[in-house]
C-alpha cells in the first residue's frame, strides 16, 4: 500500500494535459470495520461545517453505529494550506477533504485524492444530478461550463452546492428585486441617497481566500467576459478584452462608490454583519452563509424571523449581457493517505450521503444538496427563503479554473482586484496585471528555478 502511494504521488509537472497520478479507489466498497472508527473531514469554519457534523452524527450512525463523524475546521484563509501541507507530508489527519471545486486539479495531479470513477459508476446514480454540478465538484480535467464530459475521470462527489444570492431590503427598495445589473446599481444609488447611514451595496472585496476574485469574476461573467480560453490556456488578451475591461470599470467606478468606507477588506462575515445591522440596501453573499441573517439574535432588522423576512428579500443575481452566476460549494473527496479502513468508510459514507432520502434530509438540516430530486423537493425549497434562489441558479452557473496552478492564479486576481477596489491601482492596470501575471503562471511549466515569484 505504501509503495503504491509513493508511486502514485510521483510528480506531475503541473501541465493541464489531463495526465494524473491519483490512485484509484475500488469500484466496490471493501468490507467495513466493526471496530470503533472516527471518520474525519476537514473544512473551513462556517455554519455548514457544523451542520454537517451534527447531521452526519445523527443520521449516519443509524446505519453505522461504530462510526463517529468529526468535521475539523480551520479559518477560511488557512483552508487550502491546512489541507495541502498535510498532503505534502503524505500523511493526513482527515479522511475526507472537502475541497473547493478549484482545488481539484492541484490535488489530482499531486496524487492526493483517490480517483473514484469506477466507484461512482457502480454506486452512484449519476443521472440524478445536473451534469454540470456533478462535473464541477469531481471532474478533472475541468468540464466546459454547463456540461460534463462522461469520459473524464471523477475524483469527488457534491457535498454542498452554493452560489451567490442578492440580498435586498424590501422596506427600502420595494418587493421587486432589480432585474438587470445596471438597474441594480441605480436602485442602490437611489437607496443610498435616500437613506443616510445605509450604503447602497455590500460585497466581497478582501484580498484573502477567493473573495475579491469571485466578485470580479461574477461581474466579468455578467458583462459577457471570459476568464480564459481553456483549450489554448490563454488568459492575456481574453480576461482583459473589452468585456473584461468594462466589467472592471463597472466594479470599481460604479459599484465600489456605493459601498461603505473601509469595506475594502470585507468578506462573508462582514457583508452579513452589514446586512444584519441594516447598513446595506443590496448585498451579495454565498447562500450557504446566509442562514444567520434570519436569526433575530444576530440581527437588528427584527425580533422574529418573520419580521426580518418582511425587510429582507433574496433573489437570483441580476443579468446584463449574460445571466451567469458564480458556482460555489464544495465536493467531498477521499484522502490518498488515509488508512484503508477509513478510505472504505469514506466511500461508504459518500454512497450513503448521495441517496435521495438522505439528500432531502441534508436539505432540511440546512445543507444545499445537488441531486435534482432533492433540489426540487419541498424539504429543500421550504428550508430557507434563499433555497429557491439556488434551485433557479443551477443552470446559470460558471466556475473558475480548477488547474493545479489555481492557488496562485486566484492570489494574483485577489490582490489586484483588491488593489483596484482600494485605489492602489487603476482598474485598467489591475486587469492587465492580472492577465499578464496569470499567463506567466500558466506558461511557467518549463521554467527552471524561481517558480512561484
Amino acid at each position: 500500500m505504501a509503495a503504491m502511494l509513493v508511486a502514485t504521488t510521483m510528480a506531475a509537472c503541473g501541465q493541464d494535459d489531463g495526465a494524473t497520478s491519483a490512485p484509484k479507489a475500488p469500484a466496490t466498497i471493501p468490507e467495513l470495520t466493526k471496530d470503533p472508527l472516527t471518520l474525519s473531514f476537514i473544512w473551513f469554519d462556517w455554519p455548514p461545517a457544523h451542520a454537517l457534523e451534527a447531521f452526519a452524527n445523527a443520521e449516519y450512525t443509524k446505519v453505522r453505529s461504530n462510526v463517529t463523524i468529526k468535521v475539523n475546521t480551520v479559518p477560511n484563509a488557512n483552508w487550502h494550506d491546512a489541507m495541502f501541507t498535510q498532503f505534502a507530508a503524505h500523511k493526513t489527519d482527515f479522511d475526507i477533504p472537502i475541497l473547493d471545486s478549484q482545488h481539484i486539479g492541484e490535488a489530482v495531479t499531486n496524487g492526493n485524492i483517490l480517483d473514484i470513477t469506477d466507484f461512482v459508476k457502480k454506486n452512484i446514480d449519476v443521472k440524478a444530478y445536473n451534469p454540470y454540478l456533478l462535473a464541477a465538484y469531481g471532474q478533472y480535467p475541468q468540464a466546459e461550463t454547463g456540461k460534463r464530459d462522461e469520459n473524464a475521470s471523477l475524483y469527488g462527489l457534491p457535498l454542498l452546492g452554493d452560489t451567490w444570492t442578492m440580498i435586498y431590503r424590501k422596506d427600502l427598495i420595494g418587493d421587486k428585486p432589480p432585474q438587470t445589473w445596471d438597474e441594480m446599481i441605480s436602485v442602490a444609488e437611489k437607496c443610498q441617497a435616500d437613506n443616510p447611514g445605509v450604503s447602497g451595496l455590500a460585497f466581497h472585496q478582501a484580498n484573502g481566500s477567493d473573495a475579491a476574485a469571485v466578485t470580479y469574476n461574477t461581474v466579468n461573467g455578467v458583462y459577457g467576459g471570459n476568464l480564459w480560453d481553456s483549450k489554448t490556456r490563454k488568459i492575456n488578451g481574453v480576461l482583459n478584452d473589452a468585456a473584461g475591461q468594462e466589467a472592471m470599470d463597472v466594479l470599481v467606478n460604479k459599484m465600489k462608490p456605493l459601498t461603505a468606507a473601509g469595506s475594502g477588506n470585507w468578506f462573508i462575515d462582514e457583508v452579513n454583519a452589514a446586512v444584519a445591522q441594516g447598513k446595506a440596501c443590496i448585498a451579495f453573499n454565498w447562500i450557504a452563509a446566509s442562514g444567520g441573517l434570519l436569526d433575530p439574535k444576530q440581527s437588528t432588522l427584527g425580533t422574529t424571523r418573520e419580521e426580518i423576512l418582511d425587510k429582507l428579500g433574496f433573489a437570483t443575481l441580476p443579468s446584463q449581457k449574460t445571466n451567469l452566476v458564480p458556482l460555489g460549494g464544495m465536493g467531498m473527496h477521499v484522502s490518498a493517505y488515509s488508512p484503508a479502513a477509513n478510505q472504505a468508510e469514506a466511500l461508504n459514507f459518500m454512497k450513503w450521503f448521495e441517496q435521495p432520502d438522505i439528500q432531502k434530509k441534508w436539505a432540511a438540516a440546512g445543507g444545499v444538496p445537488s441531486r435534482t430530486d432533492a433540489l426540487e423537493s419541498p424539504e429543500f425549497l421550504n428550508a430557507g427563503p434563499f433555497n429557491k434562489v439556488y434551485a433557479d441558479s443551477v443552470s446559470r452557473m460558471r466556475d473558475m479554473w480548477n488547474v493545479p496552478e489555481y492557488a496562485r492564479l486566484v492570489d494574483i486576481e485577489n490582490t489586484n482586484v483588491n488593489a483596484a477596489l482600494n485605489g492602489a491601482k487603476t482598474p485598467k492596470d489591475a486587469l492587465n496585471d492580472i492577465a499578464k501575471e496569470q499567463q506567466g503562471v500558466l506558461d511557467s511549466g518549463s521554467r527552471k528555478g524561481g517558480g512561484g515569484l
Partner: protein
Amino acid sequence: MSDSVPLTTDHPGQVASATPPAPGRSRRLSDRGLAVAFISPALLLLLAMSVFPLLWALYLSFTDYSATRGGPAHFVWFENYTAILTSAQVHLRALTTLIYVVGAVALQTVLGFSIAYLISRRTHGRGLLTTLFLVPMMLSQVVVGLFWKFMLDAQFGVINSMLGSLGLGQVEWLTRQRTALISLIVVDTWQWTPFIMLIALAGLTAVPKYLYEAASIDRASEWFRFRTITLPLVWPLLLIAVLFRAIEAFRLFDLVYILTSGGPGVSTETLSFHVYKVAFLGFNTGTASAYGILMVLVVIVLTQLYLRYLNKLKED
C-alpha cells in the same frame, strides 16, 4: 595538613579526576561522559530542529523541488537565487519591509527611550509603572493583531468612533495604501516599545550616580548632562535593543497576516509574507528555500556590520 586536597587549583580537571566518585555513581561514567549526557539532548534537539532544517533548506534552495508535486529534486543551481534577486515583485516587498523596519524601530526607539528616561527619574512607583508598560509585550502577536483589527475597523472600530466624537472624519486604517502600512507600524510600536524601554531602563539605572553629582557641582545643565553622560553610556545598550527589534521587524509576518493580509493589493506584503505565499500557495519549495536563505544572509551580514560598529564604539 600537608596531604589535604587544595581548594583551588590552576587545573581543576585534575582535581576533579582525583576526587573519588560519589557513592552509587557508576564507575564507567566519567565527568566528560556526564557532561555529554547532559548536553546531548539539547544538542540533538538543536541539530534536529535547527541545523538539519537549515542545511536541508540550503540543499533545496538549489533545486526545483516542490513539496506537493513530489518526485525527485532537480538541481537548478543558482537559478532560484538569480530569479529572486532580479524579481521586481521581490524588490517591491523589500522596499515595503525596509520602510516598515525603519519606521517601526525608529518610533519604538524614540518612544521607548523617552519612557525609560521619564521612569528612571521617578523614585516612587517605578516598578509598578514598568510592569504596566510591559503588558503589551507579553501578549501573543495574533491576539494583538485581532484586537487592533477590531479597533481599527473603519465602520465599527473604537478608533474611528473616537475620531467621530471629536468631529473628525472616518479613516480607512487598513484598506488604504498609506494608512495600512502606518497602522502596522503603530500596532508593532504599541506592542514592542516596552522592549526598548526595558533595555534602556537597565542602561539608565546602571549609569553611576557620581557622574551626575559631579556634573551638578559643575552646574551642568540638564541637557548637557543628558548629552554628555546619559546618552553616551546608554547608547551601546540601546543599540543592542535596536538590533534585536530590527531583526524581529525584518521577519514580520503575524501582524500582516491578521491585519491586512498584505493589502490593499500587495502594498503591505513584507518579505516574510511573500515567502509564505511562495512556499504555500504554489508550493514552490525550492524557490521559497532560496528566499529564506537569502533573508538569513541579509540578517547575518547586517548584524555583522552592526556588531563591528558596536565594538568600535566600545573601543572608542
